[in-house]
């Protein structure tokens, strides 16, 4: 096709039906507290990684739930597994275990270690 110098922007809309929710389902079934998040951001506020890099555990949780896995795949490795987020969570979400399970799920479904 002729190149006219124009590009199409990729849509930003989350297409819920089209997305792959297997990562989230994998975590839901093994760590039910994953459902309890109320998006307060306490985990992100206390997170050392989050204070030095673009890393928000809260955001990664919600992206997995919506099946927007690419950003999670790129970023989840930044977690140092210190577990401060688990201590601060007001809903008792086992955030540290969710990071483990996410890594497992990516390995299983994507055949791609993160």
């Amino acid at each position: 096709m002729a190149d006219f110098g124009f590009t199409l922007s990729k849509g930003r809309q989350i297409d819920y039906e089209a997305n792959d929710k297997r990562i989230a389902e994998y975590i839901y079934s093994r760590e039910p507290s994953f459902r309890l998040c109320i998006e307060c951001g306490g985990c992100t506020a206390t997170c050392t990684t989050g204070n030095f890099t673009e890393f928000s555990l809260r955001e990664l949780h919600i992206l997995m739930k919506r099946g927007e896995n690419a950003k999670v795949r790129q970023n989840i490795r930044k977690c140092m597994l210190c577990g401060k987020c688990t201590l601060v969570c007001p809903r008792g979400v086992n955030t540290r275990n969710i990071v483990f399970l996410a890594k497992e799920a990516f390995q299983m479904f994507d055949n791609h270690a993160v």
Partner: protein
Amino acid sequence: MNSDVIVVGAGVAGMETAGRLAEAGLKVILLEKNEVTGGHVTNWYHLFPDRRPGSEVLQYLESLKVNGNLDLLKGINLEDARKDKNGFILRSSDGDIFYSKAVVVATGFDLFKSERKEEYGYGIYDNVITSADLERKFREGDLKTTGGKLPERIGMVHCVGSRDEKSGNLYCSKLCCVTAVKQAIEIKEHLPESRVFCFYMDIRMAGAMYEELYMEAQEKYGISFIRGKVSEAGESIDNSLIIKVEDTLAGRPLKMELDMLVLMAGMEISRGSQSIGSMLGLETGENRFFRVRDYHIGSNLSNIDGVFYAGSCTAPMNITDTISHARAAVTEVIGYLKQ
């Protein structure tokens, strides 16, 4: 017809007030415009937070009516209400005249007419229903869509007609969040394989056992909560619904296909309240509910001596608060009549 007190409206507030005033030995006339008593509760299947049947509360209210001091008159449309030096005179459209020394206004609320939020398509798309419609479906035991299938994906829209300048209602109706959570749980109980999504602006769980119910909805029933106001609903060729919302916590617009959309209709002061309010000259606030004389220590008092308020004609209220408010009105009335 003579009495000590006329109570207008035989919903939860009116029946509680009238019943308790009669128990205290006063001669009470209870006027109801409909042929049935109990108000909105008659339409409700189960009540939050403990999900007891609404009929149990109705039974309790019925038991209050059995009192020799209480005259209940149904199908009464008031045409005039005024105060003179001897007390109050109310006249119905049939020409009946009622006299009393005090009046309790317990005329309650109406549900917001969801058609007014055209962008959600209530009354246009088949499978967009209101919270009240869903209660009826629960009572009838039929959750099927108009296409005759059981819905697999159901969305609940919070704040329909509440906290919305476009509807002219800046206030929070207080009950819709917990109603959505209760109804979402009940959908999951009826249809365990379904997925339920609640779209909210803020989750307001300010009542005993509400937050616990919310947590149960997430943990036990796997209900998803997505923060964002649904901007519009559309219908696809196969009769399913497509909604647009911003997932504000993901910071991204989101579209989703649903089989059914439930609108959590808010509360507005009832037409009956507005009607008696204009007859008696009762003051209303910016939210159009009756303005009480003192929000802390005089929430049953109106701008007219001898006219008292009970229940949700003053503000959105749940049944617990309505009953407490009605009992407080009884104390105010007794105090007034002793003067």
